[in-house]
């Protein structure tokens, strides 16, 4: 685990003055990632999304390190191109510094349109850290459903209505998909558990190969909650085990934040406007399904961690 006193000495490389919403989790993710990198030189790429548009409004930038964006679906391919250029220039002696490469993407740019690009980059083994700041829908484009949107959530393209109760399908388990790539380091984290996340970023950056972190990142607008609750709300996701904090390092599972007492999922869902309709009496069965699904997955994860595989 990292030490706050040490971290406070690290440079701030995502500056204030960006245009992200008050309470936005994405800005927190970016800032903590760069703090975790310490004095290591980094080049950052990002998929099109809130983080990118809000931090790089021309002629301004919130980034003190080099930052590159080109499109929505290619943050990983982009990062791999920069990493390849680095290898080439370094080999030729045209640059001497050690540089690390970090790619950001929202869940839309990672789970959906960017999945192929991400999968390819991980398979090719580029030394890069991909961080999915997962706010569970296309928040930048207008809160449309994504492959990361959980069952029952209201979004603008899978809205709750007279006959539909939000998204009807389960989200895909991208973290497991990344684990199946057999890369050296994969982790889940949440905004709010800053020490856990920063520790993971440091581990990931030390890995000589590809690494992936899927961090649950509340979106005040899309989740519809009070902006001051971002941290506590995200922590509830870990405490209810709907979003466990764990890592898989060289094929070994470890649960990083073990809830003292596993809270019922409704404690996480209730404060969020996107799940409001689920608390109507007639939708109790949906809540039950969600809880059952969490319980099952949590048991599987605990089992994997217990047998170290």
């Amino acid at each position, binding site marked *: 685990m990292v030490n706050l006193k040490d971290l406070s000495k690290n440079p701030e490389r995502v500056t204030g003055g960006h245009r992200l919403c008050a309470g936005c989790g994405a800005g927190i993710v970016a800032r903590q990632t760069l703090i975790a990198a310490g004095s290591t030189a980094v*080049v950052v790429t990002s998929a099109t999304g809130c983080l990118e548009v809000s931090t790089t409004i*021309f002629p301004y930038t919130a980034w003190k390190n080099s*930052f590159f964006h080109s499109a929505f679906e290619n943050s990983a*391919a982009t990062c*791999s*191109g*920069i990493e390849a*250029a680095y290898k080439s220039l370094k080999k030729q002696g045209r640059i001497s510094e050690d540089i690390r490469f970090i790619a950001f993407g929202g869940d839309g740019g990672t789970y959906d349109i960017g999945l192929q*690009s991400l999968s390819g980059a991980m398979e090719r083994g580029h030394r890069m850290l991909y961080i999915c700041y997962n706010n569970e829908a296309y928040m930048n484009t207008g809160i449309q459903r994504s492959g990361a949107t959980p069952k029952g959530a209201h979004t603008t393209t899978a809205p709750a209505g007279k006959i539909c109760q939000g998204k009807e399908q389960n989200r895909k388990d991208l973290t497991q998909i990344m684990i199946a790539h057999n890369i050296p380091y994969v982790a889940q984290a949440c905004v709010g558990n800053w020490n856990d996340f920063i520790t993971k970023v440091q581990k990931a950056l030390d890995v000589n190969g590809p690494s992936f972190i899927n961090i649950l990142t509340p979106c005040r607008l899309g989740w519809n909650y009070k902006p001051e609750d971002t941290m506590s709300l995200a922590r509830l996701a870990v405490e209810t085990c709907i979003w466990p904090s764990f890592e898989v390092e060289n094929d070994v599972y470890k649960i990083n934040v073990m809830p003292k007492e596993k809270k019922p999922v409704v404690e996480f869902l209730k404060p969020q406007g996107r799940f409001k309709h689920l608390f109507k009496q007639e939708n109790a069965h949906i809540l039950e399904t969600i809880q059952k699904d969490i319980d099952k997955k949590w048991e599987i994860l605990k089992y994997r961690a217990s047998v170290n595989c």
Partner: protein
Amino acid sequence: MIKLVYPKGKLVAKTGNEVMAEAMRQIEPDVVAAYPITPATEIMQIFSQFIADGIVKTEYIAVESEHSAMSATIAASAAGARAMTGTSSQGLCLMWEMLYIASGLRLPIVMAEVNRAISAPINIHGDQSDTMGARDSGWIQIYSENSQEAYDNMIQAVRIAEKAKLPTLVTTDGFIISHCMEVVELYPDADVKAFIGKYKPERYLLDIKKPYTLGSIDLQDYYFEHRLQLAEAMKAAKNIILNVAQDFKKTFGREYELYEKYMLNDAEIAIVVIGSTAGTTKVVIKELRDKGIKAGLLKIRIFRPFPSEQIAKDLAHIKAIAVMDKADSCSGAFAPLYSDVVASLYAAGVTTPKIVNYVYGLGGREINISHIVNIYKSLNKIASGQQKPSTTIEYINVRKTKHSLFYKCE
């Protein structure tokens, strides 16, 4: 037949794909990213073997799609590397979004492109629909008549792209050039390397002492100015291309311009065409000239930037012109080259030539000497007033269409 021009050159028999790969070997870019979409070009396979054999030190990224190929090439270029890729047909289509980004970010990427038809129906054979579809993407487009030109164009493209700060693609006609073996003069590695020089980017992402943000969101207050800069850069590229050609001639002896004039100055009838069909046309012109028919040719080498003012001057005296497109824009009007030629002439106040648009060779359909002869015959009749020029596209060598000039012959 290609003859030795450069004293240190050597003649070899190679396919178009092989010579493009040879040019890439000599250029030895820092990074290459490519994907073998169907139809794939051999260029990247040949180049991969150079890497496997330790002949080049290029970092090769075997990406999982053409979209990622262009994305990774863009990123490598932005990072400070000399970056190249290659593709054709569907691959170029899949790159479409990223083509605009490469030029918008002013990255001097060079791409080896093989002109092949695009789906549907799936075809794989040669036509120019792929690059014509990308004509508004802000890429310099250089077309080749044969393998020698493809090789020479690749070498020049590196200098052009880096000076103009514009991505540049060099094409060959699928199969006709890409798969056919021809005699080509290759120049020594060291001389090619000396000609292209070292790449020194002004600003790049890996320069950590001068970090910067590239790919910002650019709203109403700046976007238009940046797009205007791009348009101006494309216009300014004409002189850059000519300067590089001049230097190339001085170094290696072969002469290039924005387009080639073949027996055009005293011609009364002329064909305007792009790529390998120019070779067939030259054969026909020689025969016609022997018969006293004043036929000529204007072969477009540089389609983007379009040599508008220059073309208008060189075509002003022609009585009847056939503009031959190996792509159809399905516009309900005319094909791309014709539209640009006619607009160029009209803008320059040149309104006397009668101009007909021919579309030919889609999906690799044969275009041979007899087709070209028929076009000149028709132009002759138009020039002498015996025939009215068609006001719609004439489709050559295609069945079951009453619009086809040759339908009745068949």
